[in-house]
């Protein structure tokens, strides 16, 4: 046996951020952006690197061909690969670069022959096609890999195997999953596409409508939203500084931001209602008592209360709790799963030597 050392990793390949946690204690995240220098001059700027990742790529986007390989929780073009085979292959190759970079960040000080076993979180309702694509990408980077539903990974990390409803609010999707003591099936999960990116788009449209002279990009609006997102009625006014004919001007966007953030709530509530209503009546109360918010979207101020209020109206009762580390909840759970998985189980799905 040439291999001796094993490193387990939990990975959350997100539309906006990709997160990794390893059992050597290292964990980190990168924005899911990959950039390629446009020409020889820009390549010189990046120290002759052929590819740039994360925030560095976003900051230097003018000198790069910038890509975001995931959209709505899926690899771009994975659902239409027959129509766009070239684009699909490119997206796959970019996603692989991103995964390689991410894994490289936690294996920097590890020996070259280390076995890397990874569990990757996929959107709750990812299609077989999409899961297959994820496995193909992982096969070249990880020695052994498995795919699990992202909200299930969150639940596993929190040891919540029954009577819990996980809501993972990401940039591309909101994944809802009820835990009933076993691996969730299709009936236990709902994915909605109105998530963080949808909030950005609504917010952008509303600002554009109100402040016609202001000049801004989605990236600026997204950054602002991530720092100030809220849905509650009370609170201070929020102002965004946007250039008007080159001069920075403060704009009051309190109502616009609130409206944009609230735009995802009805679908989340409808998802909760469906999952609760179709659950065994004897256990519905337990489910309503244990709604867990995870993902970047769980940081929206007042969202927890807003969902509780809606649940009270629609379902008579609801108790919502936020996870402690929303960004890492998925990756931590996936890592826990990878570590718990017995070796003989890993051997059944190994990709080594293939």
């Amino acid at each position, binding site marked *: 046996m040439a291999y001796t050392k094993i490193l387990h990793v939990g990975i959350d390949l997100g539309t906006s951020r990709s997160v990794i946690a390893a059992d050597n204690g290292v964990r980190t*995240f990168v924005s899911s952006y990959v950039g390629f220098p446009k020409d020889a001059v820009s390549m010189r700027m990046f120290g002759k690197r052929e590819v740039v990742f994360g925030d560095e790529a976003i900051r230097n986007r003018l000198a790069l061909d910038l890509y975001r390989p995931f959209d709505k929780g899926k690899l771009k073009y994975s659902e239409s690969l027959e129509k766009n085979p070239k684009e699909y292959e490119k997206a796959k190759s970019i996603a692989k670069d991103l995964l390689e970079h991410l894994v490289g960040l936690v294996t920097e000080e590890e020996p070259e022959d280390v076995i890397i076993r990874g569990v990757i979180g996929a959107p709750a309702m990812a299609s077989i096609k999409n*899961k297959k694509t994820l496995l*193909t990408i992982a096969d070249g980077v990880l020695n052994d890999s498995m795919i699990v539903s992202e909200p299930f990974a969150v639940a596993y990390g929190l040891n919540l195997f029954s009577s819990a409803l996980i809501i993972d609010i990401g940039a591309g999707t909101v994944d809802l999953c009820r835990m009933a003591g076993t691996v969730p099936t299709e009936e236990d999960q709902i994915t909605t596409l109105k998530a963080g990116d949808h909030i950005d788009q609504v917010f952008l449209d509303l600002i554009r409508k109100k402040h016609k002279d202001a000049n801004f990009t989605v990236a600026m609006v997204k950054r602002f939203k991530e720092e100030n997102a809220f849905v509650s009625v009370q609170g201070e006014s929020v102002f965004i500084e946007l250039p008007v004919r080159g001069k920075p001007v403060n704009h009051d966007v309190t109502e616009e931001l609130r409206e944009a953030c609230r735009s995802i709530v009805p679908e989340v509530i409808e998802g909760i209602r469906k999952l609760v209503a179709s659950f065994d009546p004897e256990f519905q109360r337990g489910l309503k008592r244990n709604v867990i918010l995870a993902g970047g979207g769980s940081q929206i101020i007042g969202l927890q209360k807003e969902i509780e209020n809606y649940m009270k109206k629609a379902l008579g009762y609801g108790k919502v709790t936020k996870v402690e580390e929303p960004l890492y909840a998925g990756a931590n759970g996936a890592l826990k799963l990878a570590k718990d998985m*017995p070796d003989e189980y890993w051997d059944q799905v190994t990709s080594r030597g293939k």
Partner: protein
Amino acid sequence: MEKSMNSKQNESDTFHEAVKGANATLDYIGLVSWSIISRGSTAIIDGVQKITETVTRNVCKPFEDITHVTRATFGKKAYVDEKIKGIEETIKRLEERLAFLEKHGVRIPEKDYQEKKKELDKERKDLLSLIVEENKRLRNVLNR
């Protein structure tokens, strides 16, 4: 004769007794007077001292305060500023370190994470086997 001599002797004794009494009375009066004077003066001195101390303290206080403020403004302030700056820099360093640890975690010594896997209960093993089965099915589709 003897009677006359006895009588003179008696008179002389009476005179001496009277002088002694007068002396004692004077001594007593003198002591009483001294006591009154000394006690009175002590009381006066104490009172005066108390009054003087209070007045002096109250008169001096504003000047003391001015001195303190002046010292704090022109002397101690620089020292305090330097200390605050030092503390701020330490807090900034700690915050940066904390942010780094929150983002990147704490590297665990190899021997700690390479330890043998813990034994799982049957329920957990069953749950994990379901995940493996699902992944095997996926891989079969992939390899087809």
